[in-house]
């Protein structure tokens, strides 16, 4: 349970930062924090208390079926997801460099030449 609270706490903190902060850097960092929360959530989904790492080193152990293993799939998923997150973060930071170059400001409220 504590992990779920932590995971959604992180997601909420991240989204809150994205909504309230004015600095473009902080917005991208908020995005990154929310992403970490999602990763923690995915890990928690597959976690079993006092479960072992899902590696069978000896097929002849007694009562193999009774041993509790942690689900390895979410761990594989977040590896992919972390890579995607880094790519998004990279593109975001590249955008920030150019935003600051063009607008000479980091304040998101001053970056609004486009209107509906």
């Amino acid at each position: 349970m504590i992990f779920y609270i932590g995971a959604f706490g992180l997601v909420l903190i991240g989204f809150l930062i994205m909504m309230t902060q004015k600095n473009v850097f902080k917005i991208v960092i908020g995005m990154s924090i929310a992403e970490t929360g999602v990763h923690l959530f995915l890990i928690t989904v597959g976690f079993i208390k006092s479960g072992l790492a899902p590696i069978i080193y000896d097929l002849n152990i007694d009562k193999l079926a009774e041993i509790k293993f942690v689900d390895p799939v979410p761990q594989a998923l977040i590896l992919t997801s972390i890579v995607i997150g880094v790519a998004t973060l990279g593109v975001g930071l590249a955008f920030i460099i150019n935003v600051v170059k063009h607008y000479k400001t980091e304040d998101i409220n001053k970056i609004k030449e486009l209107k509906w």
Partner: protein
Amino acid sequence: MVVLNSYPLYLILLPLASAFLLFMLNSFIKKIVPVLSFLVLGFNFFISIKLFAIVQHNPVYVKLAGFLPPIGINLFVSGFNGLFVVVINLIGVAVALYSLYYIKEGAKSQYYFLLLLFFAGINGIAVTGDIFNFFVFFEILSISAYALVGIGNKKLSIEAGFKYLIQGSIGSLLLLIGIGFLYSQVGTLNLGDIAVKMSTVDVKMKLLIGALFISGLGIESALFPLNFWLPDAHSMAPSSISAVLSGLAINAGLYGLLLFYFVIMGTLLPVLNILFVAGIVTMLVGEFFAYRQNNYKRMLAFSSTGQMGLVVLAFFGGTVSLMVAGLLQLINHMLSKVLLFLSGGYILKNRDDYDLDGLSGAFYKFPIAAIGIIIGALSLMGVPLTFGFYSKIKILLGFSSAGNITVISLILIASFIEGVYFIKVIQKLFNKSNDKKEFKIPLLVNLIFILFILLILILGVYPHLGNVNGYVKNLINSSKLMSEVLNVVK
């Protein structure tokens, strides 16, 4: 019966591998990178047609790395995604050919790298049979789309790209949380397996997952009120990219919604109603804001929102005939909007503001491009002899047989507004202007316009896209079809 076939794999691998290969070899083969990219996408189109011929009879699946489903990733193509893949790759070839002439300066090698990556992503979305794999391809598509919007490195395009990135990444995060909840309930990622196990899931949990998926995918498919990024991104990107974003990227979001609704949710009424209402509101808001625009590409971007609303409305209208009409309208929108963006974009290519005034007198200077704009606009309005007439009348007939007069009148109001602003554009084409003709449109670019014009006109007179009813039935039964993959393996 599901058959094993590896064509879907080529559709993804070819653009993905050549994107990185061409980028690495860029310094040696700088001159021919554009041509090679065009050839890759052309070959993809060829494969997609062959695949389409196969899926007419049997759905196709691919098991990757020797893992048997439901373990491991599998690809799955039925008639419905087969049609989708053909249209995707047709647009891909057209855009690649157009880019040969349109992208003359700036970050050329990066442009083709991202374009190929984009097509790897969208082909992957269309053929995948695994929910997490769907997310990965969705991210490949989104990240390359963010970068493509900002590739011109002009002030406004950077701003539009940054906003798109922020909102798009929120959408992806919500989608990922949804996938997490889904996995915690069913313990599998294979769509066929999910479809089987979903019946045991609690309705409240289903609604939570539904809310996360709709808000995540709704951002990409530009459902109101999640579409604030769209007009900026679509209008500020280079015209070839606007065409791709408007014709393909938002449809990828819609495809995800359909997949999610029919496979994962197994048709749940509250979700249907939410999407139905979202469709109506999106349509009206989109058309209304499009009417207010003076900027050609911005107008088209808002019109995309409106059309997307109409398509969502038809798809989630509840009857099979409406879904067929929605599919036709979806394809009509893809073809017409690509034609409008490409032809108008070339006429306005020397102007930064894409103002409507730039189009004045275009009919006398660039007749074929101007006819392209006219035909595309007429088809979106639903004028007879174009494909749009056929699809729109089918939507209206579908709602009238359901006895839903309110929705019919709302669609007609939206069509009226659409008519007004598109007539404004067409009128501009015939205005007199004193501008000198500074450039000519190359023959091959004109050929693209002619191809799309002919497609829209021929489909308008002879509206046969194969067994459309069958494809829609494929979509409705996709949970059953996809779970067949599990049996074949045994």
